[in-house]
């Protein structure tokens, strides 16, 4: 019996009641930080005075929302206040919630798995964000839905990255296609896709090595992986998931832009929301790039992956 995280006290919060409980527990810190302070700010104030505006800006900026997105949210709030729809504390709180939900609503589009055979998901992102772990969580989820899943160990660069994915594969009882460390990543993924077709697999999830978007050579390598996939199926990859660490600051927007340019990112996974990171950068990403946010990661376990939902996200941020 391996020494697992479940043995540690860390799970106390998580055990409290299923999906919603966990999401709330994870997002609770964000919520209490942001809204607790906002609530305090709003109490007893009836108009949007400048001090209040500045305090709100502070709250948003310290959640990594960024200058531009914060400005837009505040402008929006001013308009709502001017229109008389936010006259008191409760109304202001609701207006803020509305303003924030409106930004996220357009990117709240859950991943729909078509009946492409197989449906190919490519995991991309900078180093250490949670690509491999998220790939395993996805495999777990789809397997649970009764689909046949195959994993491809496309990270041939980082030491023991292959073994990491293989360990997950064993735990999940999902086959992992791998070559040796140092092998050509595109060739691993090509093999895996051929194999997935031969086996009649429903889904192929291809992991890749972390790379900084500034490394042009490595970004070229990623484009090659994509080209090779397209040789076998011009419609694939059907989903390219950019994995972003919620604690990342303004650089996450640059990552989103550069990866999208290179490999047409079609969805985001926002990981590590179980800490105190606010993940506010998704507002800027939503406003400028409009990439759907598919999932959020709220822990290291296989069950710690949630569908992203704008209302839920903002509610979890703003309610109680």
């Amino acid at each position: 019996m391996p020494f697992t995280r479940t043995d540690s006290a860390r799970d106390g919060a998580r055990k409290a009641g299923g999906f919603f409980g966990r999401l709330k527990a994870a997002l609770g810190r964000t919520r209490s930080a942001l809204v607790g302070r906002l609530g305090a700010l709003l109490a007893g104030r009836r108009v949007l005075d400048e001090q209040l505006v500045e305090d709100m800006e502070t709250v948003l900026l310290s959640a990594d929302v960024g200058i531009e997105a914060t400005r837009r949210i505040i402008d929006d709030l001013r308009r709502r206040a001017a229109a008389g729809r936010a006259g008191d504390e409760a109304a202001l709180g609701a207006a803020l919630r509305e303003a924030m939900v409106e930004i996220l609503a357009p990117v709240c589009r859950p991943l729909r798995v078509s009946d492409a055979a197989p449906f190919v998901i490519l995991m991309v992102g900078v180093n250490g964000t949670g690509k491999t772990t998220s790939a395993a969580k996805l495999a777990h989820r789809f397997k649970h839905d009764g689909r046949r899943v195959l994993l491809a160990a496309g990270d041939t660069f980082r030491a023991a990255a292959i073994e990491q994915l293989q360990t997950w594969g064993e735990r999940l009882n999902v086959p992992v296609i791998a070559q040796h460390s140092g092998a050509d990543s595109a060739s691993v993924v090509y093999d895996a896709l051929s194999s997935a077709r031969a086996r009649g697999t429903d889904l192929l999830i291809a992991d890749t090595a972390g790379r900084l978007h500034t490394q042009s050579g490595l970004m070229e390598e990623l484009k090659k992986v994509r080209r090779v996939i397209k040789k076998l199926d011009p419609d694939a990859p059907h989903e390219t998931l950019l994995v972003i660490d919620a604690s990342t600051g303004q650089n996450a927007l640059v990552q989103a832009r550069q990866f999208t340019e290179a490999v047409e990112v079609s969805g985001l996974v926002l990981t590590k929301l179980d800490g105190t990171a606010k993940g506010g950068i998704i507002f800027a990403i939503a406003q400028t790039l409009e990439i759907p946010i598919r999932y959020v990661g709220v822990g290291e376990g296989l069950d710690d992956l949630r569908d992203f939902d704008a209302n839920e996200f903002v509610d979890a941020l703003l309610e109680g």
Partner: protein
Amino acid sequence: MFETLTERMGTTLRRLRGRGRLSDANMRDALREVRMALIEADVALEVVGTFTERVREKVLGQEVLRSLTPDQEVVRAVRDELCSLMGNENAELALNVPPPAVILVAGLQGSGKTTTVAKLSRWLRQEHRRKVLVASCDVYRPAAIEQLRVLAGEAGVEFFPSRSGEDPVDIATRARAEAKRRHQDVLLLDTAGRMHVDSGMMDEVRRIHAVAEPVETLFVVDSMTGQDAASVARAFDRSLPLSGVVLTKTDGDARGGAALSIRQVTGKPIKFLGVGEKLDALQAFHPDRMASRILGMGDVLGLIEEAERKIDREKAKKFADKFAKGKRFDLEDFGEQIRQMRNMGGISSLLDKLPGTGQLPEHAKSRINDTEFVKFEAMINSMTVQERRFPALIKGSRKRRIAAGSGTRIQDVNRLLKQFAQMQKMMKRVRRKGGIGRMAQGLTGHALPGFPGRG
């Protein structure tokens, strides 16, 4: 693209330039820009506040040198403040204790702890001739122990085997005993990533610390971290007696405001920078360089140091000699420079370090790309020695041959020759005016002579 601190400061200072003395009013504008720039650079808000206040006091107070122009005054104050915030010199590891000296690393998930342990072990072995043992207390992340085993092999240091079924505290105890028994100089202990709000896991690392008795407890943090850096650093600093910080993934384009936040919140020195995934991608941290880089003065010192380490010293010396004697700069030299540049991580990583390139518009930066240099190198490789020494020889039929040989077009050859001529002119200027600082200025003049553009 976000405006970086460098770009923003550039704009502000250009605006301030030539306005005569600083007034309370234009100071407010400048400081507002500084504040916004720091936020966009991910400096934690609480730190931004104290920072701008202190800068204001400095500029408006007695410390102003009356001989400086307003923009110089602001730059000086911002720079001084950045430097003092980040500590004043490069801190070394304190390993002068009875062996084994234990180094413990801790931090959030995926920050770069395992890679940093491997880099440090390699550095201690190669640069300091220490006998090093590494051990992993990460029993959670799949294959984390295997990762360290492989990296220890690459670094050429001893590895203490552990298994995922074991208790991390127990592993630390046994690794320490083993290091002592085998007379190792240093024991590096890797730990699992943990959230600072996870009390069970924070307690575990405290217990590891208690049995390992490290002389150095390093907090490893991703340089791309945003506002959260302050609270994470504060929590780790309260749980563990941190002795220093390692800032990783600085080879990206994040402005690294987290460095300021962490330093301010913990008061602990940043000892190393991770500058890549390979095991030699570890650098000492120089606060002044970081400040200069943030302010757009570029990291010329770092560039020189990096060049010194990477470039074949012989070749560098030959080049310097040739240069000093006033010899011509030929295509052979140009080719060699391109090769060296490639070794140093390509043009984009170099551009980041050169002063003033922050002021280059994004579209100009994107035109300066590595593929151009790959072409240049191919063309130079297709030339005869004569042609490289005397580029003037390269006319019609030779151009055709070179283009065919390198898989390029005649226009490409023409472009190479044009860029080379500009480069040669610049080299002459450098020699006349002297010094790499001058050369850097030449490089950042609007046209960027010597750097290929698309046109």
